């Protein structure tokens, strides 16, 4: 549904003709993203009515005010690597591509935080922070994820959550264009005293801003945010080698770090060991991720497959439960203590350091992957085209996650065996938040090919089981698909599951209605004030 001429002109007046388009040629590049085929049945999701490229908070605000005046839904995003960024409920929705707002505004070294605009990627901030001996926690989505997108608007977990904070908890303040067009600041930034505290002086609406899974653009636009930085023990720039980018990696693990890939005999031991490592507060990074056999993803699938074929078949058949541990320390003595403690725990739970998985090249590669999330996109997309996850557990106890994992594995196994889904290596992404003090994030992942009829059918059937309100996942809470591939008009997650869980949607919808009285913040990946 297109915009009326006067509506379009009003929007054009805000950004100028160069930064608005309703040309179908351009618009059809804003509705194609991985996962679409699974959710929408084709590569295309609804085409937006227009796309705008605001260059400032003032422009973003003026756009939102215009949307309120004419009842135009809007959807902001940063890098746009998600259905949640491009999935919209109506073809009358306009999109705000925030690409032009790409500055790191401040790195406050003394107070260890940075203030950024929406199109600043995690890796860009990491490289700048490293110059000052600081680090910003990585998102498992990869180096391209927007700092603001993952900290303020979407989910937010990654490989270094144990020492560099649960990503959502790293937000120290935001500048927020509400869906009404009012601009507010949260935390100490509201009082004009700097961006150092999320809770004030000034209003502290961090929970309302994003809840746990994020409002996914349904709550207005975050135009600036301050995020916490953590100590970095490595050099400002790592030595890397390799002509082919896919094979390029750190030449070695930097001096003040150690990397280990530990293989536990069974998954429960891995869980228990991670909990103890958390309690001991010794790890810079400690998590499970599907590490491929031999730790080698290759430059392409053919090279990876050739490598896998010459491995000891035992490594392929029973990869064991692999945990990646990175230790970081300020001094040799501190490192000595951490290493000793780590090995004690490892041995207690029967963790092995298999030589093939712990040669210097694999360790350096895993160090890169742990700190900067290089390779995650390579792994989850190149192999089969798309990935998906079973309902994940988040910020919750280990016992809960152990049970969830067992059910997830049982449910996945038949599809694994009949070849409709694939996982190379173990199928777990598990990352502790702040040394387990606020639980952990857990996903059971799998890869599938949406353009292969059998794979798509199997995947859909599997998802049907996990989303069944009377199924095996019923007792594990609302099925959060990483918040990534959840589109309310298709999945009806909130609508179907809320009655099982205290009718939480009533509050969710009340908040949405209060913040967005004209319902202009596109709710496709969030919740409508009233279910249609």
């Amino acid at each position: 549904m297109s915009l009326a001429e006067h509506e379009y002109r009003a929007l054009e007046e805000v950004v100028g003709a160069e930064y608005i388009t309703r040309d179908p040629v351009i618009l059809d590049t804003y509705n194609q993203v991985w996962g679409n085929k699974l959710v929408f049945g084709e590569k295309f999701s609804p085409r937006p009515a227009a796309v705008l490229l605001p260059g400032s908070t003032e422009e973003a605000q003026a756009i939102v005010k215009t949307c309120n005046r004419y009842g135009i839904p809007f959807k902001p995003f940063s890098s746009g690597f998600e259905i949640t960024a491009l999935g919209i409920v109506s073809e009358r929705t306009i999109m705000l591509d925030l690409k032009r707002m790409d500055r790191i505004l401040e790195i406050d070294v003394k107070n260890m935080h940075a203030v950024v605009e929406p199109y600043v990627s995690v890796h860009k901030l990491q490289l700048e922070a490293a110059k000052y001996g600081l680090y910003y926690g990585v998102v498992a989505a990869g180096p391209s994820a927007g700092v603001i997108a993952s900290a303020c608007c979407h989910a937010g977990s990654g490989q270094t959550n144990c020492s560099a904070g649960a990503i959502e908890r790293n937000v120290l303040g935001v500048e927020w264009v509400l869906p009404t067009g009012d601009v507010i600041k949260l935390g100490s930034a509201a009082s004009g005293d700097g961006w150092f505290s999320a809770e004030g002086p000034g209003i502290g609406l961090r929970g309302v801003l994003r809840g746990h899974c994020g409002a996914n653009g349904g709550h207005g636009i975050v135009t600036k945010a301050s995020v916490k930085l953590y100590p970095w023990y490595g050099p400002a720039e790592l030595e890397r080698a390799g002509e082919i980018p896919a094979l390029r990696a750190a030449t070695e693990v930097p001096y003040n770090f150690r990397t280990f890939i530990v293989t536990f005999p069974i998954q429960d031991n891995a869980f228990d060991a991670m909990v103890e490592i958390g309690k001991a507060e010794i790890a810079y990074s400690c998590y499970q991720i599907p590490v491929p056999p031999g730790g080698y993803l290759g430059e392409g699938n053919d090279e990876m497959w050739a490598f896998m074929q010459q491995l000891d078949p035992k490594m392929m058949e029973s990869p064991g439960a692999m945990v990646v541990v990175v230790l970081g320390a300020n001094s040799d003595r501190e490192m000595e203590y951490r290493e000793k403690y780590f090995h004690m725990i490892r041995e207690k739970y029967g963790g092995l350091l298999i030589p093939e998985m712990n040669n210097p090249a694999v360790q350096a590669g895993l160090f890169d992957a742990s700190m900067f999330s290089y390779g995650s996109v390579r792994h989850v997309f190149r192999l089969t085209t798309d990935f998906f996850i079973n309902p994940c557990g988040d910020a919750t106890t280990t016992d809960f996650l152990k049970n969830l994992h067992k059910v997830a594995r049982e449910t996945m196994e038949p599809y694994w065996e009949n070849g409709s889904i694939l996982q190379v290596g173990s199928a777990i992404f598990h990352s502790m938040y702040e040394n387990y003090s606020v639980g952990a994030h857990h996903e059971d992942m799998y890869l599938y090919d949406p353009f292969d009829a059998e794979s798509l059918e199997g995947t859909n059937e599997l998802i049907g089981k996990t989303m069944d309100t009377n199924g095996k996942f019923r007792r594990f809470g609302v099925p959060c698909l990483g918040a990534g591939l959840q589109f309310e008009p298709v999945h009806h997650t909130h609508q179907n599951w809320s009655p099982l869980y205290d009718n939480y949607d009533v509050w969710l919808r009340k908040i949405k209605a209060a913040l967005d009285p004209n319902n202009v913040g596109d709710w496709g990946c969030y919740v409508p004030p009233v279910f249609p």
Partner: protein
Amino acid sequence: MAIEAYKHDMLRCTRCSYCKWIPWENFRNTDFIKGCPSVSRYHWHAYSAGGKFNMALSFLEGRIGYSDSFLDVVYKCHMDGSCDVSCKSVQDIEPLQLMQELRIKCVEDGQVIPAHAAVIDGLRKEDNMLGKPRSERGKWAEGLAVKDLTREKAKVLYHAGCQYSYDEELWPVVRDGLTLLKDAGVDVGIMGHAEMCCGGRAYELGYKDDLDKYAARHANIVKASGVETIVTPCAHCYQTMKVNYDKIGKKLGVEILHITEYLDRLIKEGRIKLNKKVPLKVTYHDPCHLGRLAEPWVHWDGKETKVLGQMIVHDPPKKFRRGAGGVYDIPRDIIRNIPGLSFVEMYRIRACGWCCGGGGGVKEAYPDFAIWTARERIREARAVGADAIVSACPSCKQMFQEAIKETGDDVKVLDIIELVQQSV
């Protein structure tokens, strides 16, 4: 291959946007991490490689048709392949080949832009990309006492290329190149007025038949002249003869060398001695056509298949061209061997180099965009403290010179031939 052949890739483009940047593993300075000039300048996703996959799919499905903006997106692109390297750091798909086929499709359907049509008219009349008289082609070599291969025999053909043949500002460079070879005792000759375009730029614009035509004509030249080696100072001619002729099944069957490769050989054999000091702080700009685009063509005729249920592999295995096989070390070796010179690298180098602005027909159709791209490279050269930016391609030199004319920057713009000449 028609665009339909890339539907698989269109469907599998994830919108990760890696094609907008140099590969993340290659980031060094956050001020110089962009990889795609087109999307950096025009912002809309369509202008990236991923956007072109999306656009092509939409086109194939009949959701959009040709329009001015369609052509704008297709042609405001340098075809430099930075996107291709970045995409293939995570994917097994072919963005640059799709973009090439999109252009071919546009031309086949008569969807051309006037600036390119004019260039092609000139080419078809005068056998060069500048529309200059054919009879003036050999003028650059006047007074050089070199063998004329239309009448004499030599082992090596020195192919100047269109740009060097007609751009008088560049004549000193192309002449120096030939002089270096002659002085080293190389049995070399030129085709003079009978030299003609390689057809590479026309192909890049989408005019596939012109590549076929010039490949065939060059096969005749090789046969008639009996040369064993073709040496060219033009990176684009080099890439065309070495890679594209092979791609279309018209390999010339003789050794194809860029002049840097030949000079390097002569230096190593002691036939060129770099004696004189050149007290300059220089940086080296990798020409796209000598670097990532010059990776040898890989013929593959097979099918996609699956292992482990859903893992996509190829039978026989397919070796993707990921940019690592370009000519990167040789020019650097030459530069480093020049006494008195200090060499400093920029941040986006080798397979991850930023384009000079000269490629893809942008210079001809959208000169302001071409200059914008060149200026960005000069900015990078300055950021690493270089007094001179050295390249190995006439297009790069011309673009950088145009750019500094606009900015007033006094950075020196040199071809590697000039550096060598100053040092012998």
